[in-house]
């Protein structure tokens, strides 16, 4: 499906190896520019896009699955918020996430669903604190797997955003090196992708270099930046030879990011075609509902301008302790305000919790709306996207993993059923759903996941 037969990253890796000065494989760059420009402008195949929308703390399986299967499904109580984009949604119900049940359940669920494996414990863990502070993914998360495949010559391999702050006690701000409790996007174990957490920050990142009607090539000052990174990469190669296996991998991963930055500096500017336009700078609203919408609009424009082709947007991190003031000023239990997480554990599925769980799905729907709103050739962005919507648990109050809440939005260039169908399974491996999403955007994998979660079987009924 992709119009890029060779991975840009592997090419750059090869090309930039010995470069000092500006001899940075210019013929290749020319090729990428052409590809980039014509793909969107002329009759070439349009790129596919992938996204993950994640919310923390589960849902209510009893109110999740639509009553009937097939094309005629109607939104259940939990799914009321996606009614307007229902045709673009495939529902796979009745799946089971087979976690081991030995670590923090929020982490196990997130790692299993998003990275297809079991949590990996940091070597520094010796029982000195909570295990969730020391757990990470065994491999890249699904958004990064898709991004590696889809990125092509885009300026950003992927966009990672969050509408709420991640756990402040987690990696990077404390002694706790575990990353899976806070971050849903990972390049690999302990290499998390911290999100942009406000619309203004996301705007500056994506559109800080404005989109202009007549794109110009990178200026010489930018080329010098790339040369400096070339020297860094050369230093790393010399150092690498002296390192053991583990450190070599760490350094390699670090340098992979240096290469990404280098290729972004050198990347051709995006052509201003179709719906692509420089968006107005947003402000940062108080309402989370508005915030998610603004971030989704920016990501959608990022897709329209082909600045990126993959995103991970979290409303909240796994086990998040944030509140939802759009709905309730506070979640009060035993006379004091608690977070939604604690309230849900204490109160179970009461009216307050139901309202909140439905709101999570509504926000997923609003992300799909943003993509649907931007036309592209004879359709809209959602026609060529595949957006997973999910959480780390099925039943929040007691950490359930039966009947996982997972939705697939978009029709992925025709790869997914449109109008969407409801497929009821009887305890199918939940990892099959993200695997199906990867297949839908053409990721050439025959299996995905590890250990008890490994799968080679997409959900055939939702593929067209």
């Amino acid at each position: 499906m992709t119009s890029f037969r060779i991975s840009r990253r592997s090419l750059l890796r090869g090309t930039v190896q010995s470069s000092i000065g500006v001899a940075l494989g210019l013929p290749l760059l020319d090729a990428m520019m052409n590809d980039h420009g014509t793909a969107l402008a002329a009759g070439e195949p349009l790129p596919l896009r992938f996204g993950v929308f994640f919310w923390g703390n589960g849902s209510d399986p009893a109110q999740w699955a639509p009553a009937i299967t097939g094309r005629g499904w109607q939104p259940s109580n939990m799914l009321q918020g996606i009614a307007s984009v229902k045709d673009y949604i495939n529902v796979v119900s009745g799946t089971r996430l087979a976690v081991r049940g030995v670590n923090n359940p929020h982490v196990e669920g997130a790692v299993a669903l998003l990275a297809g494996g079991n949590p990996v414990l940091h070597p520094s863990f010796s029982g000195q604190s909570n295990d969730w502070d020391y757990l990470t993914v065994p491999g890249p998360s699904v958004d990064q797997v898709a991004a590696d495949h889809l990125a092509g010559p885009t300026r950003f391999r992927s966009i990672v955003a969050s509408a709420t702050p991640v756990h402040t006690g987690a990696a990077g701000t404390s002694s706790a090196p575990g990353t899976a409790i806070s971050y849903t996007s990972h390049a690999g174990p302990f290499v998390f992708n911290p999100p942009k957490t406000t619309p203004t920050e996301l705007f500056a990142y994506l559109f800080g270099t404005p989109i202009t009607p007549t794109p110009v090539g990178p200026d010489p000052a930018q080329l010098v930046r790339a040369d400096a990174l070339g020297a860094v990469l050369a230093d790393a190669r010399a150092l690498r030879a002296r390192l053991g296996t583990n450190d070599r991998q760490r350094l390699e991963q670090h340098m992979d990011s240096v290469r990404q930055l280098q290729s972004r500096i050198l990347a051709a500017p995006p052509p201003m075609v179709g719906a692509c336009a420089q968006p107005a700078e947003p402000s940062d609203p108080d309402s989370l509902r508005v915030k998610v919408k603004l971030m989704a609009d920016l990501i959608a424009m990022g897709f329209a301008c082909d600045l990126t082709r993959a995103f991970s947007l979290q409303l909240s991190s796994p086990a998040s302790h944030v509140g939802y003031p759009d709905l309730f000023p506070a979640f009060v239990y035993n006379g004091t305000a608690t977070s939604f997480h604690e309230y849900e554990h204490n109160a179970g599925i009461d009216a307050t919790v139901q309202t909140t769980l439905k709101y999570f799905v509504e926000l997923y729907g609003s992300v799909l709306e943003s993509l649907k709103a931007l036309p592209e050739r004879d359709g809209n962005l959602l026609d060529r996207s595949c957006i997973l919507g999910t959480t780390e648990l099925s039943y929040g109050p007691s950490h359930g993993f039966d009947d996982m809440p997972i939705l697939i939005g978009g029709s992925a260039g025709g790869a997914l059923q449109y109008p969407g169908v409801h497929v009821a399974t009887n305890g199918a491996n939940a990892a099959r759903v993200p695997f199906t999403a990867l297949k839908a955007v053409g990721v050439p994998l025959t299996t995905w996941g590890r250990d008890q979660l490994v799968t080679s079987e997409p959900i055939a009924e939702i593929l067209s």
Partner: protein
Amino acid sequence: MRGVALAMVLTTACVGEIGGPAVSPPAGPRPSASPSARPSPSPTQTPQPVVLQPAGIRLLTVSQYAYTVQELVGDATIGGVGQWRSSIAAAQGGVALTAVEEYESVGRAIAQVIFGDAVRREALAGCVPAVQVADPCTLTFLAAFGRKAFRRSLTAEEMTRYTALAEGARSPVNPWRGLEIAVVALLQSPNFLYRVELGEPDPTDRTRVRFTSIEMATRLAYFLWNGPPDEALIRAAERGELLEDAPLRAQVRRMLEDPRGRRGIVAYFADLLNADNLLVLEKDPTWVPGFTPTVGPALREQLLRTVESVVFDGTGDYRDLFDTRQTFVNAELARLYDLDPAGLGRELTPVMLPASGPRAGILSLGAMMALHSGLANTSPTLRGKYVRNVLLCQKTPAPPPGVVATLPEPRPGELVTTRTLLSRHQTEPRCASCHGFMDPIGFALEAFDPIGKFRTTQNGLSIDTSGEIDGALFNDARGLGRALRDHPALLDCFTRNTYRYATGHIEAPGEEPVLSSIARASGHSVPNAFEAIAMSDGFRFAVPAEGL
């Protein structure tokens, strides 16, 4: 309500979220009160052979990046960036794209400020570059700046590389541009961002490597100063002196007496106590009266200055941290602690807590109470677990599978204390085993709200602060402090924590003899422990990394 709870409270404490199976004993038995998973050998056992851990690269922590760049370019206003704040995480963790982006943008900004200023660039370079082949100013600068940045001399290959980079970037219009770009690159090189400590064959013992004299300079500087080596240390290293006991010890003592020694030891406690989390402290002000955006940073400074005063201006005895009444407050903290704020402003000033007051020792400071609470409520479980796990190096076992997640609900309309709810939870015997290990420590701290404000009631009911740890009974936080001071696991755990910080890894069983000898040499003294670790085999030697 906006923000994030610092940790889970109450309800999640007994639901598969404590400890991990890889190192925990099977579910069911009483929690272990022995220090750590790897108990020290008893005197009756035959001496264990020492087996060291692999050498490797360690990323600079956020604060180490700041101090290193500050000293490199002579600008104390530069702040830190990077991926990790903690020593162990930086020694073993990865680097994400965002950190790489930060390193690049900050590196460029620093270089731009210096090289855009005619006075500063000449002061830094000590010469004026010319656009010519083998420009002597370029070569001299790269050799000198590179040596400071890499904490060793540049190789011939590196000199060629950076010279070529500089020559490609400069122009007759801007001859300084070459040096500027070279600095941008040097500040992103792995040789700068990582401490490269790989060792060389130890001529006296073929099973291990010794850190080279040059590498020892870096190890010592980041351990004792949390910053780069100074010229005297690099010179001593280049003379090979850091491989020999006597000159090594002389350097260690010099460094501990240097003002940067305070910075280094305080950085260790900041890491151990997660003090930087106070910089982003969030509480719900409707439920935690007195919470302001400034209270977290003030509590952080109070905590670290209290530690510094015990270690450097008091006895240096680690145990004193748990019952000292010497501390520091500004006007805001004085009000928080019910002290007289008259005459106080924003600066912290020394104060002696009242002898009859509810508070003494770092555990009863607002910093610790705030770090181990929820957004709106306290958690005896979290506070107790922190003491067990971090200060005593004891493990809390994983709770048994299938335990009900929810606390018993208060009856309709009923308001109870947290202690009462937890006591009802403990009527479930499978929960009682682990909660009984943690909660009675935290009960003593229930008199302090989520930012450490003293209180005597909760929900209108009086708070019972009596508690127990391993047979020692107490009635309040000050009693807990005394019990902790005398706890048999306290000093052993301090040694372990400091060794982990120094070496960047959790000690392996083969390092127990090293730890025992460090503990003997340290006694109760914090500075002595730093000296003993710097002189120990575990700090000076390693085994080669796997895969070489």
